C-alpha cells in the first residue's frame, strides 16, 4: 500500500496483514504461495480464504456483499464481473441473499 491509502480502519488493518511487496507482509506471503489452484489471493477481503489464512475476515455471509464484488469486478476469475464482461449476470436477481440460487455459471459446461 504505497500509493493508495485506505480510509477506514478495517481496511488499514487488513492492509497491514495482507500481501505487500514492501516487506511487511512476509508472513502472509507464505499463505499466498499456497493457493489451491483456482483460488484468488486478492485479499481485501479474500474470496475463498482471508488474508490470515482463515475465513473469519471474509464477507459474512458472502451474499451480503456479493454484488459489491461483481459490480467492480473484484474477483473476476471467480465472480462474473458485471461492469464489463457479464452485465446481465445479476439481472432480475436484485437480492443476492434471496436470489443466489438463480445465479448462473458464466462459462458453458463442456
Amino acid at each position: 500500500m504505497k500509493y493508495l491509502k485506505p480510509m477506514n480502519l478495517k481496511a488499514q488493518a487488513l492492509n497491514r496483514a495482507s500481501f505487500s511487496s514492501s516487506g511487511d507482509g512476509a508472513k502472509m506471503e507464505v499463505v499466498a504461495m499456497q493457493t489451491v489452484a483456482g483460488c484468488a489471493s486478492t485479499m481485501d477481503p479474500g474470496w475463498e480464504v482471508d488474508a490470515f489464512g482463515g475465513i473469519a475476515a471474509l464477507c459474512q455471509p458472502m451474499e451480503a456483499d456479493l454484488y459489491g464484488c461483481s459490480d467492480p469486478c473484484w474477483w473476476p476469475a471467480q465472480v462474473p464481473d458485471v461492469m464489463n464482461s457479464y452485465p446481465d449476470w445479476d439481472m432480475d436477481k436484485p437480492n443476492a441473499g434471496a436470489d443466489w440460487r438463480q445465479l448462473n455459471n458464466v462459462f458453458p459446461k463442456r
Partner: protein
Amino acid sequence: MSGKRGLFVSGLTLFILSAVLTSVSANDSTGDFKGKALVNDYCAACHEQTDKGGLTRISDVRKTPEGWDMTIFRMEHLHGLAVDSDDRFAIIKYLSAENGLSPKESAPFRYVLEQRAHFVDTAPNDDLDALCGRCHTNARYGLQRRTAEDWLKHMHFHVGQYPSLEYQARARDRFWWQEVTSKTYKELAELYPFQNADWDQWKAAAYKSPVGLWRVTGHRPGQGGYEGIMIVSRDGDFYKAEYDLNDMGQKGKSITGNSKSVIYTGYEWRGSGILNGTETREVYALSEDGNRMTGRWHDAIYYDIGGEFQAVRMDGAETQVLTQSSDYLRQGETKQIILHGTGLTGKASADKGLGLSIVHQDSNSVTLQITAGRNIAPGSYRVTVGQAETAIVVYDKIDRVKIMPEWTIARLGGGNTPPVSAQFEATAYMKGKDGDIKIGIMPALWLVAPFNADAEQMKDVDFAGRIDQSGRFMPAAAGPNPDRKYSTNNAGNLTIIGRVKDGDHQVSGKAQLIVTVQRWNLPPIR
C-alpha cells in the same frame, strides 16, 4: 450404451460428437484445409490478414485446446462472434494443431487441465504471483505462448477489461500498469516464448495412433486402485475406448464402460464416456513414442471425483510391475499381494527375509503369498518377477501419519453450482536410517475439529459439512444460513484428523480444510 450417449453429452464433447468432418488423421491435410477456411471465414472480419499470411493476434499465440476454447468463448460473448458447435470444434482442432503446445511445454501444468481440485499452484516468482496469480492460476498463462508484442497486448486487454485491478490488494502497492507494460511482458516472452524449437519439432513430427490394446492401472483417492484392459479403436475422426477394469479395493467388483475421444495436437486425448453408469471426462496425454497414456478422468459434474490413470501399450511391452494391491506388510505377517503389470511370466523371487509362494500367475497379474519373518529388519524389500521389479515395505511400527492433501479447500454447493468435496488419504511412515520411510496408504478413522478459536466460536464443525469413513468431506449447502451468527454461509476452517490403527494404539495425522463459498466462473483452465 452408444445409442444413449447423444442424450447427455454437452459442450466440448457435443462438438466432438456432432462434428461432421470427413475421416482425418492427426496431422492430416483435409482437416487443415477445412480448419483454415473456417478460421478465415469466422475470424478474418476482425483479425486482419498479416504479411506472412496469418491473422493478427491469432498467429502470434499458441495455446492448449482448452485455452483456444476459452478465447473463442470470449470472442463470442464479448465481441459478438457467432459460431456453430461443429465449426467451433473444427476451429479448435485446427488451431491446436497449428498453434498448440508441445508435450514438453504443457507438462508442468497438467494439473490444471486434469481438473485437480487440490493442487497447489505456484508462480515462477513472487512478482508474477502478485501480478497475475492472485486472480487465476499461474498455469493459465504458463499454458500459453505469445510473442513479446502479443504478451504486451494481453496486458492492455486485462487492464481495459478489469479496470479496478490496479486498486486491488497486491496491485495498489505497486505501479501495476507501468510494471507489466515495461517489464513483465518481456519476462513472460522469455519464460513462455512463441518461438520454440521443441514446438517446431513436435509440429513436424509424425504423430502416433492410440489404436490397440492397453494395460490400464490407476488409483481412485479414497477408493483404492484399479487395473485392467482398454481397447482403443478408430471411430471416424474419433477414438473409441472400451474399458474392462477391476476394482482392487473391492475384490471381484468390476468397473466397465467406454468413451469417445479426440486427440488434439497429436497427443492431447480428450474423452467423454461412462464408467459403471457415471458420466466421465478424460484428460490424458499420449507419450511422444505413443506407448503410454497418463492423466486423470473425472465425474462430468463433480470434477473433484475421479481417478489417476495410466495405460501402457501391451504390444511389445517390457516386463514390468505397474501397480500392486498393497505396498506393505508387518513383521511376522502373511499376506496375499497381487502385482499387476505386463509380461509377468518369469520366476518370482524376493530379498532374503521374505517368504514367497505363487498363488496365481498370468502375464498380466501375479498373486503372491508373502510372509515377513518375525525378526527381519524393517525396511524396503525387493520382489522380482523375471525382469520386473517392485518393492514391498516391511514395518514394525508406524511412527508418523501424513494426511494428504495437507491443506485444501472444499466448496459449498447449491443453486446452479455443484459442491466441491475434498478427499483425504492417510499415508503411514516409519523412521529409517536416512529419514522417514513411506509404508503406504492405510485405512483411517476420520474426524473433524475446529482449526482455531474463530472456528470454535462460530461452531464451524457443526455447519460446514461431514466427513465419511473413506476420508471424503462433503460440504454443506450454500447460501446464507439463518441459524448461524450474521446468517453467514456454512463456511468453515477445519482440522481434518485421520487416525490409523497400529496394533493396539493409534497414530494420527492432521490436515487443514477451508470450506468456502462457490464460484460462478468455471472455465476449463481455472
